[in-house]
């Protein structure tokens, strides 16, 4: 089984699919009463928010178009990269905040399953990978620095 420390990548991906995302249905259907909530009614070309896992199922059957989240745009991601490069730490300050805890998982899922609904998916994928690498480098540096300072205190 998955380890008992934290979530694995696949578990994170599973959990992030409960997040709501905008879709534009291509069919008509009454309200759907799920345990998570009541969604619908589904009307053609009328956007609504549904869980990501449901959006991906509908997309697979070509029954809807997925609206990419507001943060998934070239300019916004480029600004995020600039901010990340300007700050030495992975700080929690507002101006440096990631748009959501499952930012990477949602981005990867959308780029994999709904690339045709996203503008410039290749560019966005590169930008998101860049953000991931920059933050990973910063985190490793910070953890190395804190473990060295701990040794100095000893």
């Amino acid at each position, binding site marked *: *089984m998955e380890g*008992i*420390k*934290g*979530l694995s990548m696949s*578990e994170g991906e*599973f*959990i*992030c699919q*409960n*997040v*709501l995302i905008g879709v534009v249905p291509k*069919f008509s*259907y009454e309200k*759907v009463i*799920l*345990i*998570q*909530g*009541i969604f619908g009614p589904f009307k053609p070309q009328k956007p609504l*928010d549904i869980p990501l*896992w*449901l959006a991906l*199922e509908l997309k697979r*059957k070509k*029954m809807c178009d997925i609206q990419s*989240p507001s943060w998934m745009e070239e300019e916004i991601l480029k600004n995020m990269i600039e901010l990340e490069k300007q700050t030495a730490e992975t700080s*929690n300050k*507002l101006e440096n*905040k990631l*748009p*959501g*805890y*499952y*930012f990477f998982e*949602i981005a990867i899922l959308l780029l994999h399953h709904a690339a045709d609904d996203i503008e410039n998916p290749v560019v966005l994928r590169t930008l998101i990978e860049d953000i991931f690498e920059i933050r990973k480098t910063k985190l490793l540096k910070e953890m190395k620095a*804190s473990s060295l*300072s*701990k040794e100095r205190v000893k």
Partner: protein
Amino acid sequence: MEAKEETKKEQEEVKGADLDYGDEPEGENPLIKKMIKIILKEREIPEILPYEEETVSELDTIVKEQEEAVSEQETRTANENFFVMIYKTEIERLKFLLKTYLRTRLFKIQKYYLYIIKHEKADLLSKAEYNFVANYFLYKRNHFKECFTKDLYDSLNDFVEIKEEDAVPHKNAPVSEDLVVQPSLKRPVFIKMNCDMPRVNDFVMETKENLKMGEIMLVPYDNCKDLIEANVAEIV
């Protein structure tokens, strides 16, 4: 007054930016988010936590009711067939969540069963888990005895013959303290502040500023245990 307004504005901005911890849309069931938080907590925190009987049984009941409703549903059109499949997919997803929670606890119970017995942590377990610990204790001891401990000298053999009446988790169970695996409370965990808090000495290494709502930190568990119990911080 201005500082307070600024903090309130910042908090609203944080809420809006956050995909996962923002306001729930109308009609969305908060039980699933609660279950996910419980699973995260059980995964991250090194020691065994009290069994969340209320949430687990409520979710289990809802899943069973939905399962019954779906099995009775008649379908005529392709869309109806598709949405029956969707209902079943959601049921499987929620069953996976419940099983993940139970599996995580079972993993911890198997690892720390001697600690649970010796330190009387049985009140943290469900009835089924309690029975599991009692039987696991017996089986493990008998297994070790059959494999090799029966051939050891008595002075080297910390494992004693267990009688039926001793197979109940209690602090006087015949187990040496040297053999008890204890959870490491110094293990670092990621926490998120639920409210502002003035800086506490020795809480976080090299903290210079007061802790703000929404801040995420990596902290040894025993430093933040009280904060988590008081809901001042939560596991992420």
